[in-house]
């Protein structure tokens, strides 16, 4: 999975694109994830993956890779985003092979 495997037509891509631009939508999303996902026409699989911040599943559905670390930052702070930050570790635990065994990250 990589940038060449993106499904540009996926509703989740349009939603995540817009969340980073429109802070009012972002606030609404954080307060009512299901309502906003419904509004943007996400499929059941997309909704489940985004609600759970299951970025590996989102990648499999065709979400743009660039969005994946940003989805983590939707649910964890994006500040001071170094390699041992909570957001980076959540990312690594899902996306970096071997990380869960204590070998990944740095």
């Amino acid at each position, binding site marked *: *999975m*990589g*940038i*060449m495997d*993106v499904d*540009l*037509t996926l509703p989740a*891509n*349009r939603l995540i*694109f817009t*969340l*980073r*631009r429109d*802070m009012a939508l*972002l606030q609404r999303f954080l307060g009512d994830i299901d309502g906003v996902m419904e509004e943007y026409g996400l499929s059941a699989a997309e909704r489940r993956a985004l609600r759970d911040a299951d970025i590996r599943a989102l*990648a499999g559905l065709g979400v*743009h*890779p*660039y*969005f*994946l*670390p940003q989805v983590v*930052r939707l649910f964890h*702070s*994006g*500040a*001071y*985003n*170094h*390699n*041992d*930050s909570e957001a*980076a570790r959540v*990312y*690594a635990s899902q*996306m*970096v*092979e071997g990380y869960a065994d204590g070998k*990944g*990250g*740095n």
Partner: protein
Amino acid sequence: MAEIAGVIALSHAPGLTGWLDRASDAERDNLLAGYAEMGRWLRALKPDVIVGIANDHVLNLPLDNTPDFCVGTAGLWRGPAPWFRDWLNVADYIVAGHAALARRLVRDAAPRGLRLAFRDDLLFDDNWSVPLHFLTPDYDVPLVPIHMNCVVPPLPTPARCYRAGEVLADVLRGADEAGRVVVMATGGLSHDPGGPRYFQVDEAFDRAFLALMEEGDAEKTLREATVERMIAAGDGGTTELLAWIVALGAAGGRPARIVCYEPAQSLRCGMGGVVWDMGGAAARAA
């Protein structure tokens, strides 16, 4: 008539402003020295305007109608966009745009075969916020931002990017509005945001790419710096180097000088910068 006083290409990864204290001493010292040097180089050229070119990071260019290149036509820009504030850790800033020059670029590039989309509401993230923080910390040089598509398939080919740089330079030289211009590409080097190698850097690739910039053989660069190789060096971000290819085209394919490089795993990105001295009136006066 205007003059391209200099061309520069440099990394913009957010760790440089967001968590540089987590880099090693050597990484930090080398990068801070290099970015300071690039800032001095740029300010010594006394540019009237910076024409910037960088990856849009899928922030402004919509996925349902992604242009290759989009010029910002506003007279004033504010950064960074709210969503990126905590991540980037830079103070809010305002920088002048140059609407007349931006509109000129759109008009005069078209008959030369280069489409430039345009809009006046671009949001800025690390693409401009990180380089401007180091290069023009007083935000006193107007910026015409060109956001390009480096990551939404299909990508513009390196050949097309090189040609875009040639066209931009050609248009700028004929633009009464421009004055002394620095063309500034930002992005790269190897990194993989969103991929399995998010925490890795491909130093061998980076050094080979920088050597191509230093060599100044455009044909060889287009042959070797392919999208496939960039993707192999880090899928989600390395193709930002397409902006460097635009810069190379704007510099007429001449050799660049490498200012600094660090394979900064701590910043999750190969970091560095190169400059092209254009040898015009500006260089002679300096």
